[in-house]
């Protein structure tokens, strides 16, 4: 028994030693799962002699819960737009001042003064995209640039729709269809919204995040979706078309921010600067298939991406709307509408 213990302890110790880093510095990235280009990381490790670790999360909320509860050791997180604002207000992010960094000049002007980080004091762009929906045009070849596809669908699409299982994405789409403002606390308008969602629900087959699987399996012909996911689904269903509804659609951006208690702040800052270089930003996009917000990066991107209709918006499409976090009263009202919808 004693021998068994010593052997096991030695094994564990050995495995520990093998896992140790020998580079000069370290950087610990906490990003969405399967979202970080390995090529980008390799290049960064070589350029700065830094050993990088990557861990993945599945939602902004998981990441926030973990960081707030006191998880330590991470240097970099990649929160979505509204989550940057929340994390700044909770004092979780370090003010690294990316606007003073060498590569900041490459950031497209429209991403410099954003609501979640005016003047870019905390975060730099990682990737951005839109949340709308895709339709299999082999099944329905009419006009798809309207939210009526989701809320008052044509006969052939009834019961063939997947919605995202996301309170904000569903409610904001509904509010746009009705022409009501976002972050809405008008009881009458919310009642109207609730009725709309309940009547549309009978046409929805599922509410699920696994949009690519839903579409490619033929389980549904329409899915509320992110543009990059829709592009990847199109590789398997060539007739899939991403819609730009005239009532409007959501835009989002994930941003690289440094945590206040980061053990390797200097390396984290180097990383922020590193990804604002167009060549490096292109590596991010080529891997995860979303636009990056850095000017000149398209030269280094896969040609099939720079021509994709999911990435290049038509001239007549409305501008994507970035929706800030709503206040507590609105969140409570939305939760009621959502609970009512889901029961």
């Amino acid at each position, binding site marked *: 028994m004693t021998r068994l*213990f010593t052997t096991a302890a030695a094994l564990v110790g050995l495995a520990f030693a093998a896992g140790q880093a020998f580079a000069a510095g370290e950087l610990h990235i906490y990003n969405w799962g399967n979202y970080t280009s390995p090529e980008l990381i390799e290049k960064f490790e070589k350029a700065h002699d830094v050993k990088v670790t990557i861990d993945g999360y*599945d939602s902004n909320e998981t990441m926030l819960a973990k960081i707030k*509860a006191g*998880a*330590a*050791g991470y240097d970099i997180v990649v929160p979505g737009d509204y989550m940057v604002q929340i994390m700044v207000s909770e004092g979780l992010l370090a003010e690294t001042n990316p606007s003073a960094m060498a590569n900041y000049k490459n950031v497209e002007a429209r991403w410099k003064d954003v609501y979640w980080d005016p003047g870019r004091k905390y975060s730099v762009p990682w990737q951005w995209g839109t949340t709308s929906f895709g339709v299999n045009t082999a099944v329905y070849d009419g006009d798809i640039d309207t939210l009526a596809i989701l809320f008052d669908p044509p006969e052939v699409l009834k019961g063939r729709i997947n919605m995202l299982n996301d309170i904000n994405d569903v409610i904001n789409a509904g509010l746009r269809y009705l022409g009501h403002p976002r972050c809405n606390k008008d009881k009458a308008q919310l009642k109207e919204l609730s009725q709309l969602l309940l009547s549309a629900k009978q046409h929805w087959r599922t509410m699920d995040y696994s949009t690519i699987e839903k579409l490619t399996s033929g389980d549904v012909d329409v899915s509320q979706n992110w543009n990059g996911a829709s592009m990847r689904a199109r590789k398997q269903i060539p007739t899939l078309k991403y819609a730009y509804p005239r009532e409007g659609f959501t835009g989002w951006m994930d941003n690289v921010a440094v945590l206040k208690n980061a053990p390797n702040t200097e390396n984290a800052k180097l990383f922020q600067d590193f990804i604002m270089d167009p060549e490096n930003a292109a590596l991010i996009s080529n891997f995860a298939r979303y636009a990056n917000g850095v000017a000149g990066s398209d030269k280094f991107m896969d040609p099939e991406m720079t021509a994709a209709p999911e990435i290049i918006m038509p001239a007549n499409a409305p501008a994507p709307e970035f929706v800030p976090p709503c206040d507590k009263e609105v969140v409570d009202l939305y939760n009621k509408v959502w609970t009512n919808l889901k029961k």
Partner: protein
Amino acid sequence: MANALDLKRQPGFASVAMICCFVLYAPIAVLVLFSFNANRSVTRWTEFSLDWYVRALANEGIQHAALISIEVALAATVFGTAIATAGALATTRIRRSRGTNIAYTVINMPLMVPEIVTAIATLSFFALLRTGLGISFGLGNLMIAHTVFCIPFAYLPIRARLENMDLTLEQAAADLYATPWRTFRRVTLPLMLPGIIAGAMLAFIVSLDDVIITLLVAGPGETTLPLYILGQIRRGVTPEVNAVSTILLAVSILFVTLFFFLGRRQRS
């Protein structure tokens, strides 16, 4: 009369049992099936291929996650089983009193408390250790957390084994002037070994499968296999994940089968 009350003879027993087995295992069968799919879809079958296994095994993220999972599971198994063995001996080899019941409840507490509560409590505990005393054990944190929730899983089979063991054998050894340690080495331990092995295997598999506690406690560079799979979901699942899940499943089945046979030997 006894026959009339026998569950197996109730009308519809076979069909209900079959439906239950189907509901439980059909999704797993589909998962395994699609790990052999040539196409990158996890829902549309094209043709048989082992490509996803090759890719999964060559994937550095998966390799690293697997290594972490195994390190943590080994540590949790060794320490958890050792503590559980000591606990089982203590609760079965002393005179029963009210304290025994309390000890029993405390040991099994992690089984009753919802996992998320244990997870948040563990995370707060380690955060407090770090901020208050400046102590952090790195991957050791995860190993400690896993050891703790593995203890009751290892404890139950060991205790069951000890309770079924004949006390007279130990008394006979003592009568023949064996020291307590010698009695333990030559009589008690060999007899309780099947229970210890079964407990260890159960602990190993519980540690390998854990998501919630690991999700909250894991630090940088400590992604385990289940966490790796969870992180993939938003960006689209490829059959690579099916392949890894199938390997995990195979390991689980292997252990559960061994556990079953050891349990049978123990009873006979």
